[in-house]
């Protein structure tokens, strides 16, 4: 236990690094996922193809392999950046595919009458999407979206093993390997700090699910 208490500052800074990583990746993934979801339901066949290819490729590639390609492939073609930048890019690419699928299921849950009503008052497809379909789709896909975000927080642990300095998993690794603390307390500490991020998200999910269930 002393190993955790002595290094509390290491854990807290790790928590904030992980949080920063997740906020950036989450924001980018939400935007990219929304764009891809609207591509996937759009009237333009090429855009639908792009959306489908995006989701199929990213969802079927292990996150580790995506991070590998970005962290060690991009520098080969001369794109250099920090490892946390690479980690954010990899995480948000990977997560955007899941965001897209969650949103698309939400879009399909919007009842046909809503879409027909939007069309019959003369809205174009993009207007209908922006003012009618997506707002309702977002609401009904909040539960799956929160699950996607929780999964992303946990996936961010992989980034620590890809040279991102100072996130929770990297700090745990360095405390056990380099500084020789016993593994059990140190890693239990890492797990508990991850719970600080995931458990509130889970509770939020429970609240939201109850709300949405009432609305329907």
């Amino acid at each position, binding site marked *: 236990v002393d190993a955790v208490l002595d290094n509390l500052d290491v854990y807290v800074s790790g928590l904030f690094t992980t949080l920063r990583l997740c906020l950036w990746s989450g924001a980018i993934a939400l935007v990219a996922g929304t764009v891809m979801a609207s591509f996937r*339901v759009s*009237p*333009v*066949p*090429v855009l639908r193809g792009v959306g489908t290819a995006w989701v199929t490729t990213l969802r079927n590639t292990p996150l580790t392999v995506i991070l590998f390609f970005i962290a060690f492939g991009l520098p*080969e*073609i*001369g794109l250099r950046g920090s490892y946390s930048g690479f980690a954010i890019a990899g995480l948000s690419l990977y997560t955007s595919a899941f965001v897209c699928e969650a949103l698309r299921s939400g879009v*399909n*849950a*919007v*009842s*046909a009458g809503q*879409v*027909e009503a939007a*069309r019959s008052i003369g809205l174009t*497809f993009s207007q*209908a999407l922006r003012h009618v*379909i997506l707002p309702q789709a977002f609401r009904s896909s909040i539960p799956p979206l929160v699950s996607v975000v*929780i999964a992303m*927080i*946990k*996936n*961010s*642990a*992989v980034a*620590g*093993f890809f040279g991102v300095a100072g996130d929770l*998993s990297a700090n*745990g*690794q360095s405390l*056990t390997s380099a500084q020789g603390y*016993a*593994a*059990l307390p140190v*890693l239990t500490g*890492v*797990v508990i700090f*991850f*719970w600080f991020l*995931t*458990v509130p998200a*889970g509770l939020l999910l429970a609240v939201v699910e109850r709300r949405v269930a009432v609305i329907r």
Partner: protein
Amino acid sequence: VTAPPPGLRYDPPGPRGRRRVAAGTAVAVVLVLVVAGLALARLARQGQFAWSRWAPLLDPRDPSFRPLWHFLIGGLGSTLLAAGATIACSLVLGTLLATLRTVSARWYRWAVVGLIELLRGVPVVIAIFFASRVLPEIDPALDLPLIWYVVIGLVVYNSVVIAEIVGAGLAAVPRGQAEAALAVGLSRGQSLRLVLLPQAFWIMLPALIS
């Protein structure tokens, strides 16, 4: 409410719309080709496409060809082994957890639920790292081949995920089934095993596969 067929969300584009789509597509294709060409040119300048780099993967006469493919196929085998062991163990454990959750008395149900919720919040990498570091520390006899740490970490995580899925499946079986099973004189365990779980697995098959 069924999902509207995609055609309901828009009219098929008319002649002008089709022209716009065609023009936009052409521009986008040209843009993508230019970007891809630039990236490929850059890779080529750095010699990334030199045959000597790809020969170990593609040329059977290359001295590295055999060891490389041996290595890759060995990796595929290990992945299949780890996946198979994980699937088997976590299906059993997950089903056990799910049934524990439904049949447990109130006073310890919170313990089962708490365990599921907490384990669900552990990143898989950390679970694997945990297993590989902590188990040998506890007892040198647990100094297993590395692949078993992978299996242990994955089982810990996936069994709670499967417990959630099976739990949702059990909840989705109509109530009448459980009542009918009890009414014909099956015990609770028998009704779970013979009536509820088979139906729950069937309902949850898509989620289990994904």
